[in-house]
């Protein structure tokens, strides 16, 4: 027996992450609630650019995922890692840098996103300097985690730690892969991939952000905190290992299910669908393992709020991971895609799985770390029931809204024309459901305040234990012996574990993405598709700044109901100059891919000034600042140069005359507007002109005719 060593666990860092989790939970949910209310009461957009739906929707998603769940992951990992390895974290300094670095990134996101500084890639909206900061802080976390693993006193790595390792490895790969971009200046960059390739890389990232940020670390937390709270070992350790390898291997392939029926090649779509269906097995393996851990202890679930939250969390995980594969079946996706069904699905995962598991963890940790008992079980129960009702009120109306709207989009009259030809009818129909969803969000957020009160009271009645004394024998490094199981060999060696996880996730990523990148010259090109003019390019960047893609898709699927409503279906060759691609994933408003030439310039002018003037009942916010602010052309030349460097075929030295060209096209549009009765001083210099130029260009290349400004 080796010598018993005395040491202590660092609770101070865990405490900081807990506080950040709670604060950013409230912030993220509050922003989400405001966004939900904006859909019912457009006045809630508050008439300011910074508070419009398009800009705060990414703020909500980023805050919920990376600030709330992110801090929750770190709190749980810093607590469980030390105890599972019987050692203190590798470095207090790194723990501090990690904590403050992550909060600084959140602050940067909270400032830049409302300012419209965004790369427009869902869940990766932050611009390149912040991307670099994220990478640095993530590496600090990695060093701290692997340092801790290396100095452990426990020979074997418990399955929770494998999930943490897989999370770290995969998030690193995803973050780098999806943020390869060339800067124009400090706050603007263009991605190295364009169009359909960009879409594939983005959703390879986007889906796996769900998989490896919202799922695998939380499974690790589940495997630690459920046995802890129930005071009994996990149901099947064997199952946890099989489910781990199957999950990380399969998850990475499933991304293309976000792009079904788009211009993505069929083979990639089928691959995404098949692997998504396969995901049911390892996902349910995890869910059953979590729930069955409580076998024989169900009476305690009734009494213990920690277990209550965890049971609903794991059940929500099971529901979401059954629903996900179902939504990945092409025929189901044909109905669900672009509708609120997806939003409902996602929130079962975030509110149920991530939210409730976090709350369960907090109810466990705070009394433990403050050396006391929970202040009030009754209040925790109240939180539980109001929160659960909140989830139901959130999700069910959105399922209803999704089905209703999708069926309305697809309904034809016997004469062969669309029954609801006016898109707006399908929006006003579901507004009551949006109102109910906002009620669900309010309940959920309200219940969180009950938790905050309860936890503060709990902390108040105890006293915080910053250093928890522990003792364990020094680690004896066991020599490998003949006939030992390969897996036991791996799990004693974290570095090999890292390499194996990396290989497992890279295989999927490579096979899917590699052919798409290799075929750069073979995406069927369309001769008439030309790069955007400087004015259209600036308009496109305004479209990105305002977050228009949060509500408008630019991808017409090859269904009769869509070609009838919007026009010819979208072809991959039309997007080769799109950096980033702007296909969108939700239609709160109609698709815009063929909006070019559909309305006169003046329609767009009036529509941006006051959407209800052209579309009575519209819930789109007004954009008066586009009519007031002058277009910034100081970066136009630099943008052209950056795009040229990425391969967009502008003529040599075009950057020198780009602004001149831009002004020419702008005056033509302003002239046209004047003819249509729009009088405004200095109109040709305004941002609205660029937006009009871009919108009028959209989708017109395959059918060259009179273009914007002509």
């Amino acid at each position: 027996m080796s010598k018993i060593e005395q040491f202590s666990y660092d609770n101070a860092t865990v405490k900081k992450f807990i506080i950040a989790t709670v604060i950013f939970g409230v912030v993220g949910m509050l922003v989400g609630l405001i966004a939900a209310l904006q859909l019912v009461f457009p006045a809630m957009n508050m008439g300011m650019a910074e508070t419009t739906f398009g800009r705060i929707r990414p703020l909500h998603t980023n805050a919920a995922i990376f600030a709330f769940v992110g801090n929750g992951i770190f709190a749980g990992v810093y607590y469980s890692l030390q105890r599972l390895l019987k050692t203190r974290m590798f470095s207090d300094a790194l723990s501090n840098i990690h904590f403050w670095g992550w909060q600084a990134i959140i602050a940067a996101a909270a400032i830049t996103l409302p300012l419209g500084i965004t790369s427009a890639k869902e869940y990766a909206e932050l611009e390149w300097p912040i991307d670099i900061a994220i990478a640095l802080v993530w590496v600090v976390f990695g060093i701290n985690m692997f340092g801790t693993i290396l100095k452990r006193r426990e020979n074997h790595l418990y399955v929770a730690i494998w999930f943490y390792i897989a999370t770290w490895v995969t998030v690193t790969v995803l973050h780098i892969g999806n943020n390869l971009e060339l800067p124009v200046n400090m706050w603007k960059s263009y991605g190295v991939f364009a169009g359909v390739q960009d879409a594939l890389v983005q959703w390879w990232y986007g889906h796996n952000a769900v998989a490896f940020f919202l799922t695998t670390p939380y499974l690790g937390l589940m495997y630690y905190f459920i046995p802890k709270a129930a005071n009994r070992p996990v149901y099947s350790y064997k199952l946890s290992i099989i489910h781990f390898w199957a999950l990380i291997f399969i998850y990475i392939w499933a991304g293309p299910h976000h792009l079904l029926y788009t211009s993505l090649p069929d083979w990639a779509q089928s691959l995404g669908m098949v692997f998504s269906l396969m995901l049911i097995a390892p996902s349910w393996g995890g869910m059953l393992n979590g729930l069955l851990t409580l076998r024989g202890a169900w009476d305690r679930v009734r009494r213990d709020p920690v277990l209550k939250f965890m049971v609903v969390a794991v059940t929500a995980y099971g529901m979401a991971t059954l629903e996900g594969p179902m939504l990945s079946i092409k025929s189901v996706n044909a109905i669900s895609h672009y509708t609120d069904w997806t939003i409902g699905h996602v929130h079962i995962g975030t509110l149920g799985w991530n939210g409730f598991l976090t709350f369960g963890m907090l109810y466990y940790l705070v009394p433990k770390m403050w050396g006391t008992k929970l202040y009030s079980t009754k209040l925790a129960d109240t939180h539980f029931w109001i929160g659960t009702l909140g989830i139901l009120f959130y999700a069910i109306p959105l399922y209803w809204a999704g089905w209703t709207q999708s069926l309305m989009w697809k309904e034809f009259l016997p004469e062969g024309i669309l029954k609801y030809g006016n898109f707006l009818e399908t929006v006003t129909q579901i507004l009551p459901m949006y109102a109910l969803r906002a009620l669900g969000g309010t309940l959920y957020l309200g219940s969180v305040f009950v938790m905050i009160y309860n936890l503060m009271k709990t902390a108040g009645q105890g006293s915080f234990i910053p250093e928890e004394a522990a003792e364990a024998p020094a680690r004896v490094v066991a020599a490998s012996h003949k006939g030992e199981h390969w897996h036991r060999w791996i799990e004693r060696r974290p570095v090999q574990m890292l390499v194996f996880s990396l290989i497992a996730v890279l295989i999927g990523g490579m096979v899917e993405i590699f052919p798409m990148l290799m075929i750069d010259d073979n995406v069927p090109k369309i001769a008439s598709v030309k790069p955007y003019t400087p004015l259209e390019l600036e308009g496109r960047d305004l479209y990105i700044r305002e977050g228009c893609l949060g509500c408008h898709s630019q991808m017409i699927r090859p269904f009769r109901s869509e070609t009838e409503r919007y026009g010819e279906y979208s072809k991959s060759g039309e997007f080769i100059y799109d950096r980033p691609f702007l296909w969108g994933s939700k239609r709160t408003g109609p698709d815009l891919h063929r909006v070019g030439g559909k309305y006169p310039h003046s329609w767009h002018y009036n529509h941006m000034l006051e959407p209800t003037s052209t579309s009575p009942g519209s819930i789109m916010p007004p954009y008066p600042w586009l009519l007031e602010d002058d277009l910034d052309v100081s970066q136009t030349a630099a943008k052209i140069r950056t795009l040229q460097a990425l391969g967009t075929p502008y003529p040599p030295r075009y950057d020198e005359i780009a602004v001149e060209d831009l002004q020419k096209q702008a005056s033509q549009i302003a002239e046209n507007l004047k003819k249509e009765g729009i009088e405004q001083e200095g109109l040709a210099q305004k941002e609205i002109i660029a937006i009009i130029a871009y919108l009028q260009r959209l989708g017109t290349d395959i059918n060259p005719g009179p273009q914007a400004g002509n």
Partner: protein
Amino acid sequence: MFKHILASAGDINWMAIFALLTFFLLFVISAVTMFFKKQGFIDKMSNMPLDDATTESKK
């Protein structure tokens, strides 16, 4: 058309087959080895979260 895209990307069939085989092997090996693991080791691993090694928990 997609056939043409795949054909011009070079011979990538091996990648799909390699991936399938890797997954299949990984799954089968991990399942089989887990099945034959000693119960003592499995018990030790599954009880790991329950022992904090804090001096408090040892009392």
